[in-house]
Each structure stands twice: as structure tokens, then as C-alpha cells.
């Protein structure tokens, strides 16, 4: 990595502490990612992005800001990227998936908060995340209680805008969400000084839809019998989608897909035949939280799909691009976004339908239900999901785990036992074929 110390200093970062963080990440990445066999060539770009995660991309953001553009950070897939793009601002997803930030987060938040929230607050307050430092505005949303209260604390450190996300999906909630999108438009117009027009919003919609389409193209390849890419690598691509330059990301991911399509033609797989196919469902996994995928794929399984916000909830369903007036466009945005089935909604039957559908589409053998500790909404929703899966005779295991590796031994045993449990089922299914 080139020398970015001047850049980091200009962002008011704690350089010494940041050095500690930079020391651990590459080794961690090597162990988890570079050790994989038969990795697609196209992953080299994503390796590069990770290697430069605190370097080149940060420099790009700094250049955007020098040109007068604004950087807007968000934490949830409900925040409409289209609007950010229409205001000619640069959006970055600020999810925080490292243990490193937890102690700093715990200075402000109760220990029994979810690690995602703790790490986000810790990343900002410790001044060690250059993305947080590059943001001119953070956009929060009213999803879970932990986040709601964290915005008040983050707001003391950086300008914050909070979108009031409804918790139900009735007609009046849709109207309310349209209102929130309008307020967001005003806020961004004020921040950037750029007027958002039908044309710019249409361009934003087109761009973000393209990003969704390329991710769908990638995920479609994971439906194949012979998996051309590991779950770990696919997860990484989705995670990078949150903060990379969208045009370049689309181009590079399309290139990767072309390579993978060739693999599919040649029936090449990165896994041995008969490796159990796992659908992961639950809470988001932010960089560098690769723990569950790594555990699954080193315990004899393969991840074929994520029903998470770093998976299908991020890119499924496009925004209808036929709207001509601003009102029609806002309605189209609201419709697409309120179609996301996050556990913070009540009731949330759509998520169960999604899990059942994805299980079939991706030809999964079992479901690993993943939740971060202290995430009430996802942990509670497990009961309903399990009932539905039991009824459909779909095996499921619940894994609650944070970012630390303390529980790795027990997790491995549970996952291995789960895969052993799937074996006789698979044999019966094969015999019936």
C-alpha cells in the first residue's frame, strides 16, 4: 500500500491506533481468503479493493470532496442510494464488522448492544475508520432500538440525518415513507447545493438498478449444481458493493460473472461433489465479518445464498424506472424499498416466504439462521421461521455469534454435526430421484 499517512492525518484520524488495525487485517484476509483453492481470476480486483480499503478508495473520496462533492454514509439497506446519487453525492455503506472497535463502542453503549452498533460507534469515536472520517453527513434510520439510540450519540460527533422508517407495511406507512424520501431529498439538496430533478433521479435509479442487476447475475450463478464461486467470495463482492465506485464495481463484477459463466459451461466447481449447500439467513455481515462463511466452508459446507442485508435483501427487486414525474419516481422508490423484509417490521411474513423461495431457487440442503448477539428482532423472529421450515421439512440450525473467535471450536462442532445430519437426508433425496 502506498503511503497514505498525510491523507489520514488530514481526516483527523488517530494514526497510532489505526496502525494497530492495519496490522491485523491483511493477515486475517490472507488466512481466510487467499488460502482458498480454485479462486476465480476475477476476484483479484476485489483482493485489490480490500488491500486498498483504507487507501485508494479513501483518496478517491478525498478527491470527490475536493471537487465539491459530498460524501454520505449510511447503515441500512433502506436508505435510498438513488437519491444520494441524484444529488451528485457519493454514498458509502458504513457497516462495521470488526471486534477492534467494540471496546471503544462500549465506552458509549451498554455492553449488551449488538456488535454492529457497538462497532459503528467505536469506529467513529476512536477516529480509526477513514470512511466515517470522510463523511459529510451520516444517515440513520429508525429500525431497531439499538440503532435509534446510537444515532443520538453519533450525532454528537458528526452531522446526522435520521429517516423515520415505519415498522408496519400498511397503506399509510407507504405514504409516510414517501414523505421521508421527500424530506431526504430536501436534506441532500441543502447539503450539496444541487437540485434533484426528474432527470437526475432517473439517472440515479438507472445506476443503482444496474448495480442490483449485476449482483443478481452473480447470485444466479450460485444456483448452479457446480458452484463456480465460494460463498465467502460472493459475500465479499456484495460487501464491497456498499462502498466501491458503482460504475467500476458494475464493470468488474460483470467481468467476474463472465469468467464464472465459463466455469459453469465447463462444469467446474470450487467444492467437492456432494458438499452440503447452505442458505444463510439473518443479520447483516459487515467487512471484515467473514466468520460464519469461513466456518461453514472449512467445516465441510458451502454457502449458496445469503438472505441478509449483505445478500438478497440488498439487491432483489428493481425500482420501477417508468415514472416520469418526481411523484411517480418517489412512489416507485418507496414501493421497492418497503418490499424489503427486515425483522424490524411487524408482522413480517414476507421474510418467511423469501427464505422458502430462496431455499428452492438456490437448491439448498439446509438453512443456517445467523444472528448477532442482542439482536432482538432477528433472534425473536427465529421461532416463526423455524416453525415454517419444520413444516416444510427443511433442516435449520440457529447460530448466534459475535465477531470474536472465542466460540470457534463449539461453532465448528455444531456446524459439522448439522452437515452430518443433512447427509442421510441427501441420500434419501438422491435415491428418490
Amino acid at each position: 500500500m502506498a503511503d497514505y499517512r498525510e491523507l489520514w492525518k488530514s481526516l483527523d484520524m488517530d494514526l497510532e491506533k489505526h496502525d494497530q488495525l492495519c496490522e491485523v487485517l491483511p493477515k486475517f484476509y490472507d488466512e481466510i481468503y487467499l488460502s482458498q483453492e480454485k479462486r476465480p481470476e476475477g476476484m483479484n480486483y476485489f483482493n485489490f479493493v480490500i488491500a486498498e480499503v483504507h487507501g485508494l478508495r479513501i483518496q478517491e473520496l478525498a478527491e470527490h470532496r475536493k471537487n465539491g462533492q459530498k460524501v454520505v454514509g449510511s447503515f441500512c439497506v433502506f436508505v435510498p442510494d438513488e437519491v444520494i446519487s441524484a444529488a451528485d453525492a457519493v454514498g458509502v455503506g458504513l457497516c462495521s464488522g470488526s471486534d477492534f472497535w467494540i471496546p471503544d463502542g462500549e465506552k458509549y453503549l451498554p455492553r449488551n448492544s449488538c456488535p454492529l452498533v457497538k462497532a459503528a460507534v467505536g469506529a467513529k469515536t476512536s477516529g480509526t475508520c477513514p470512511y466515517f472520517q470522510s463523511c459529510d453527513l451520516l444517515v440513520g434510520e429508525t429500525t431497531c432500538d439499538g440503532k435509534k439510540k446510537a444515532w443520538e450519540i453519533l450525532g454528537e460527533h458528526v452531522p446526522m440525518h435520521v429517516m423515520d422508517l415505519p415498522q408496519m407495511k400498511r397503506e399509510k406507512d407507504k405514504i409516510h415513507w414517501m414523505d421521508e424520501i421527500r424530506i431526504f431529498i430536501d436534506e441532500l439538496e441543502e447539503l450539496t447545493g444541487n437540485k434533484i430533478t426528474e432527470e437526475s433521479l432517473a439517472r440515479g435509479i438507472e445506476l443503482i438498478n444496474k448495480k442490483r442487476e449485476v449482483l443478481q447475475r452473480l447470485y444466479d450463478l450460485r444456483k448452479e449444481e457446480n458452484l463456480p464461486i465460494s460463498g465467502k467470495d460472493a459475500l465479499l463482492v456484495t460487501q464491497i458493493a456498499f462502498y466501491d465506485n458503482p460504475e467500476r464495481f458494475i464493470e468488474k463484477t460483470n467481468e467476474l460473472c463472465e469468467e464464472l459463466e465459463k466455469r459453469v459451461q465447463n462444469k467446474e466447481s470450487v467444492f467437492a461433489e456432494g458438499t452440503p449447500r447452505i442458505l444463510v439467513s439473518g443479520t447483516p455481515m459487515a467487512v471484515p465479518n467473514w466468520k460464519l462463511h469461513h466456518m461453514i466452508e472449512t467445516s465441510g459446507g458451502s454457502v449458496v445464498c445469503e438472505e441478509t442485508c449483505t445478500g438478497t435483501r440488498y439487491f432483489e427487486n428493481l425500482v420501477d424506472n417508468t415514472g416520469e414525474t418526481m411523484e411517480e419516481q418517489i412512489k416507485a422508490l418507496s414501493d421497492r424499498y418497503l418490499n424489503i423484509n427486515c425483522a424490524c417490521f411487524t408482522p413480517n411474513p414476507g421474510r418467511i416466504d423469501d427464505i422458502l423461495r430462496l431455499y428452492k431457487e438456490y437448491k439448498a440442503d439446509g438453512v443456517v439462521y445467523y444472528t448477532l448477539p442482542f439482536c432482538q428482532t432477528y433472534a425473536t423472529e427465529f421461532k416463526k421461521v423455524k416453525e415454517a421450515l419444520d413444516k416444510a421439512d427443511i433442516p435449520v440450525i440457529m447460530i448466534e455469534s459475535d465477531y470474536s473467535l472465542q466460540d470457534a471450536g463449539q461453532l465448528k462442532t455444531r456446524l459439522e454435526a448439522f452437515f452430518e445430519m443433512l447427509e442421510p437426508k441427501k441420500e434419501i433425496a438422491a435415491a428418490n430421484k
Partner: protein
Amino acid sequence: MYSIGIDAGSVATKGVIFDGEKIEHVIIPTGWSPKTASEEVLKQLLVKSNIKKEDVERIIGTGYGRISMPFVDKAITEITCHAKGAHYLNKKVRTILDIGGQDSKVINIDENGNITDFLMNDKCAAGTGRFLQVMANVLGKDVSELDDLTNNARPEAITSMCTVFAESEVISLLAKGIPKENIASGIMHSIASRGVSLLERINILDDVAFTGGVARSDVIGRIINDKISKTIYKPPNSQIVGALGAAVIGYRELL
């Protein structure tokens, strides 16, 4: 034709040799090294059954030490092995409660001994053999003496689940002059309740097998029985069920 199963747990390492009918077993403390312990178990098993290593066609390792056994043909988790072991011993078993030295688990199986669901406790010593061990120490007794000590005494409630807090609770109960038998009885109830609450998180099916080192206590088995009103099956040697399952799986692979 012989197969061997070795189960290296946190406290004891168990080995079973199986010829399709008869079984022979060995149990030794795991000590510091599951690798050394499992090698020792293998050696003792061969001596005990008077056969040569070459005559053993399959060795399966299980338990948390399964990854440290270089000589096995295959490693399988203790969950699958317990399921197979309990099913081999009693075809009517559908739910298994296993309480070992450092963890506990419940497993549901179907009529073929295949797992349909399972749960493990949190990574914590509450309600495991370790808990029993610590409490026995405070009472100045050996774990094997606790059953006799309870002697149907009225249980003195132990309110802390956490081993560390329960330890100081027991010390202060002793200081208050509460008879040891009431305290011992309270300890047994505490472990049994943890086992029952784990059971209740799964769909409990008749018959229930109670296995693992802690199942050696008849008193705990009785208390659990009273609480869940299901037929409880206790294998003659509750500690070797995992190793037996491993041996049975190995044997079937030879057929």
C-alpha cells in the same frame, strides 16, 4: 472384524471396541493432552480385548479432541455419535439428553437413529459435570459420593446458575449451618433443572435417553424423570455412548 470408537471429552477419554455384537470399553482421564489420552485408550483397548492393531479395520474419533487423533480413519462429531450410540442401545429412544464434563446437548432422532434436530448449551459450565465437580469440592466430597449424601434430603435452593456464584452461595450456606445433605440435594436439583430447560427447547419425544458423565448420578436422573414425565432410559454405562456410537458407525461402514 473389529472397529474402534474413541471419544476424547474435556474430562474423560472413552474408547469402545466393537465386533458387531460384543463391546469392550476403556475410560481414562483426558488430562492435558487429548492426543496422548486417545493413544493410551487405543493401547489399553487392544490389550484388554487381546487383539492386534492390524485386526482393527476402522477407527473413528469423536469428542472435542477428535481433531487431535492422527491415527483415526475419520472424525465425526459427538452429536452424531451419541445419536447412533443411544439408538444402538435402545431402538425406542427418540430424544437424548447428554450432560458431559463441560457441555450439554439434546438430540432428537428418528426410527433409524438419524438426527432430526439438536441443540447445545452455551459455552459455560453451568449445569455440566464441571459444576458438579466444583460443588462436590466445596462440600469436601467426591462427585461419586453425592448421590449417597443427598439421601432424600429436602433440597436447599441454589439460586445461582453460574458456577462461580453458585460456589460462593454454597460456601455461605455451609457457614449458615445448613446440612450438607440439603445442599447436595439442592445442587442435584439445580443441574437437573438446567437439563430440563435444555430439553424443553426441543420437541421432547419418548423415550428419552440420559447419557454422559453426569448421568451416572441416579438422583439427577430421578429428578429429571419427575419433571418431564417421559420414560427415561439410562444406559448401563452412560459415559461410553459417544464412543460406542463411533464404533458402531465405523463397523457399519465396513459392511
